[in-house]
Structure formats: structure tokens, C-alpha cells
């Protein structure tokens, strides 16, 4: 146990004093403004529903999968979704493999609350047979590199993956209309999920007893800050969730200032996410055209080779 503690990364007193005194003059260690975000890149994987988000040095991957299950007894017409957060030991030497720790659970809960309570993901469209079979969507978030501000990056990754996920089309048939036939993607085009709005998270760090405010803290700043708050807003200006887990008390005016900052940035970030998703969808549909060509070719060649 002591061996593990010896290997933990700890911020030196010099570094923390440097960060704090720089912030007194409104300077951040990496040269950003107080409310500037790092560079955001959104990439997608081969399968539908897999996204990779890089926010500066923070690297997060999200995978969305769905399977048919029995619905909850009190919600027979609604599907469900669940978020699993994996703080991979790859991201930070202090992350232990195995059971998720406090911060992993907190991150999962913030994103879950924003999507579920605000009804961003439409669960009624996930119902196949009322009371018997519904789609259960599972979102796996893998934190690969902890460069700070994991909540925002993971939130964007989850949204991007949900927007590009396609679930198989299924029809109800058979006698009594009780049989469900799931169509493979070659037969029928898989369907996207219905997402009503995009709740985007913005994290603030408080320094110097709440008088200095910073957006998108890096992992060095996170080790120095005395408090934090995450605000999840959507492009319509609705507040979907606010999370301020204890720590240093902060003035009301500062909280309102944070809310205003977050809602002013929500539209821009939503646009970035939607543009990335559009570009990916365009590329995928153009790839599908090529695929049909090669299929037709092999069908023609097949019989010839056998003879």
C-alpha cells in the first residue's frame, strides 16, 4: 500500500505557488485566457456509435451499444440507457484498475443526469413491444489521458457517439404480433437515436477563496484549485444540470456569472459537435456507395472462378 502511495504524482509547492500567483495577474500557465477552452477535436471510429474526443491533452473515447431487454416494471413503454465510466489506468498513474472510484462515479452521474432528466435522449422511441421488449442503450466512456477537465470531454464524447449511433431496425410480426424480427444492417438501414437537444457541460475552477474563476482547468490547475462547478446547458439556453460538490463556498454573483458564461458558449460548442457529426455522416454515406460496387463485382466474379 505504501509502495503505491509513493508512486502517486503530487504537485510540488513551487508549481502550485506559481500557478496561483500567475492567476492573480490573470495569466494561465499555458497562456490561455481565463475563459478560453483548449483545442477540441472530435473523431469517429469504424463502427457506428464510437467517438474519440481530444480536449487539449485530455483524451476520451465513447462507445454506444444497444440490446433488447425487458423494460422496468414501472416504465413498460420506455427504453433505458445507462452510462459506464472507465477511468483507465492508462490515463493517470493514480487511477487503479477495477472498481470505479469516486470521481469516476461522479463523472458518470453528471453526464447521466444531464441526458436523462432533461429528456435529451428519447426513450419512448426505444420501445419495441410494450411491457416485453425495449432497447437498452449502453454508453461506455473510456478515459485514456487525464489532462484535466474530464467531465466536459467525456460529455462531448458521449453526445458525439449518441448522435452517430445506429440501432438495428426491427419489426413486430408473427402470430399474435409477439415475435420481434431484428433486421441485419444489410437488409434494412439501421436507425439513429432520437436526440431532442444536446446538453453540453462546462466546468469552472475556483481559486483564491472563490475570487478567481477559470474555465477548462488542466490537471495541474485541478490540483491547485480550491473548488469547482460543472454547469450543463443546451443551445436553447436551458440549464440541464448544475453540480457543485462542496469545497470552498462561493458568492452567488459568481455562480450567476458562471451560468451566463456557460450559456453564452453553449451554442458554439453545439455547432462544433453537429458539424463534426455531419461531416462523418456524409463520409459514411459516400463510403456506402463504393461498397455496393465491390459487392456487385464479387458476385459477378464468383461463378466464373468456380467453373
Amino acid at each position, binding site marked *: 500500500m505504501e509502495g503505491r502511495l509513493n508512486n502517486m504524482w503530487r504537485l510540488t509547492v513551487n508549481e502550485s505557488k506559481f500557478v496561483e500567483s500567475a492567476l492573480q495577474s490573470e495569466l494561465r500557465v499555458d497562456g490561455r485566457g481565463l475563459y478560453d477552452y483548449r483545442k477540441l477535436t472530435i473523431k469517429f*471510429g*469504424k463502427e457506428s456509435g464510437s467517438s474519440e474526443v481530444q480536449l487539449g491533452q485530455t483524451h476520451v*473515447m465513447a462507445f454506444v451499444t444497444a440490446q433488447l431487454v425487458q423494460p422496468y416494471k414501472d416504465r413498460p413503454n420506455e427504453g433505458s440507457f445507462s452510462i459506464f465510466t472507465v477511468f483507465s489506468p*492508462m490515463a493517470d498513474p493514480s487511477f487503479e484498475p477495477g472498481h470505479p472510484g469516486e470521481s469516476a462515479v461522479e463523472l458518470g452521474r453528471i453526464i447521466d443526469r444531464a441526458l436523462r432528466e432533461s429528456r435529451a435522449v428519447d426513450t419512448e422511441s426505444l420501445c419495441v413491444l410494450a411491457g416485453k421488449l425495449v432497447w437498452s442503450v449502453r454508453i461506455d466512456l473510456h478515459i485514456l489521458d487525464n489532462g484535466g477537465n474530464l467531465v466536459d470531454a467525456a460529455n462531448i464524447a458521449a453526445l458525439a457517439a449518441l448522435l452517430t449511433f445506429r440501432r438495428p431496425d426491427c419489426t413486430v410480426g408473427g402470430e399474435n404480433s409477439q415475435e420481434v424480427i431484428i433486421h441485419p444492417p444489410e437488409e434494412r438501414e439501421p436507425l439513429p437515436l432520437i436526440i431532442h437537444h444536446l446538453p453540453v457541460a462546462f466546468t469552472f475552477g475556483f481559486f483564491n477563496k472563490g475570487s478567481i474563476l477559470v474555465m477548462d482547468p488542466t490537471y495541474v490547475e485541478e490540483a491547485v484549485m480550491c473548488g469547482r462547478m460543472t454547469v450543463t446547458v443546451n443551445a436553447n439556453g436551458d440549464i440541464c444540470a448544475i453540480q457543485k460538490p462542496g469545497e470552498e463556498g462561493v458568492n452567488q454573483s459568481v455562480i450567476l456569472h458562471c451560468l451566463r458564461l456557460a450559456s453564452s458558449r453553449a451554442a458554439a460548442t453545439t455547432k462544433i459537435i453537429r458539424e463534426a457529426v455531419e461531416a462523418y455522416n456524409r463520409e459514411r454515406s459516400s463510403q456506402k456507395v463504393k461498397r455496393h460496387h465491390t459487392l456487385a463485382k464479387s458476385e459477378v466474379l464468383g461463378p466464373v472462378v468456380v467453373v
Partner: protein
Amino acid sequence: MEIDREDGRTPNQLRPLACSRNILHRPHGSASWSQGDTKVLAAVYGPKAGAKKNENAEKACFEVIWKPKTGQIGKVEKEYEMIMKRTIQSICVLTVNPNTTTSVIIQVVHDDGSLLPCAINAACAALVDAGIPMKHLAVAICCCLADSGYVVLDPNKLEEKKMTAFAYLVFPNTTLSVLSEGSSVAKGESVEHGIITSVTHGLMSVDDYFLCVENGRAATASLSAFFRKNFQQSQRDSSKAG
């Protein structure tokens, strides 16, 4: 009679390889390795103080953590961790940093067949990126046996399901293995042509297994060349930058 593979490859043809190193910032070494659509991410945290329990404290210790794409870790993942740990232990120099633990973390990004060999190659690239002292690299390949007795290399997921048996083989990648004239011959079989790891699934005859080994070893030449070119290129780039 040639086997018709879906993507038009010949039986001995590998899928396109891609490797990039130093992609993550916190780990001491990281690499991503993809063979066709199979992509694996590997990260290495350099020697940490203290060996784990039940481990020999006189030698360096390695731990491998395998993270699947979705779901919990099961028996399959634990088996992969054990195989990779043994493979890495045999290629790294264990006497340089005694009583330390080096962690290798594997994250599966996409699985389209031949996953374990892809992970071993990624781990080797990450170990090189981290600067862990190694005797030589390991080059891993998957060879499978079709019904007709044909050996097919580097299958994708659909091909793996159709095959009767397949073997994951890991060969050493020494500099001498490229120049066959200069290789030292010890008791008839040269040392560089040994097998580090071999994992088989399914039923195959002894002759078929040796056929797989022959074909696999021949293919490792191209994999080794890819490794070498990739590392030399990044060395040249970093020396230009510096």
C-alpha cells in the same frame, strides 16, 4: 487451388499496418497499432518502486491490464493479460531495474480479428516509446487453418469464425533474423528463429501446425521491416526537430 478471401487478399497477405507512437501525454510511452480494422491502444508507465506480491523482487516485474471495449473483464481478458505478461517478460531485460513494476495498459479500440497479436505489437511499440530496456522486439501474427488445409494469415473477424483452428504466434525480431547468412546456427536450428509464444485454438495436426509456423515466420519479415522503418522514421523526425 487458391482460397478466395472476402477482401481480395492472398492467403499470405497481411492487412494494411499503421503504427503511431507518443500519442498520449500522461503515460511514459504510448502507441496505437492497427492491422486493417483492428485497432489497439497501448500505454506504458515506467518502472515504479516496489514489486508486486508473489513476484521475484530480484527482477523487474511487469503487469498487464487489458481493457475491453465494452463490458467487464472476464476470463478471456485475464488469459490475454497472462499471455502478454509472459511474452513481455521474455523480451525485456529483467536485471536492469530490480524490484520495480512496469505497467502496460491495453485498450481495445476495435476488434476485427487477430486481436491478441495486434495488442502484442502495440505493447512492443509502446515499450520502445517509453524506453524500457529490451533484448529484442517481438512480432506477433495470427495464422489460421481453413477446412481445405490451407494456412491463412491475419484473418478478420468473419474469417476467424469460419476457420477450423487458429494459432497466435509471437516471434523474436532480432537484427540478425533479417540477414540469414550471418545467423548463428546452434544445434541445427538457429536461435533467432525460435518461437516466443504460441497459443492455439481448435484442432490441428502437427504437420499443419508446423506449416502455420513456417508461414508465420515468413510473414514476420515484413512486420519487422515495418517496425524498423517506423522507428527509424520517427528518430529522423525527432532529430530534425531537435
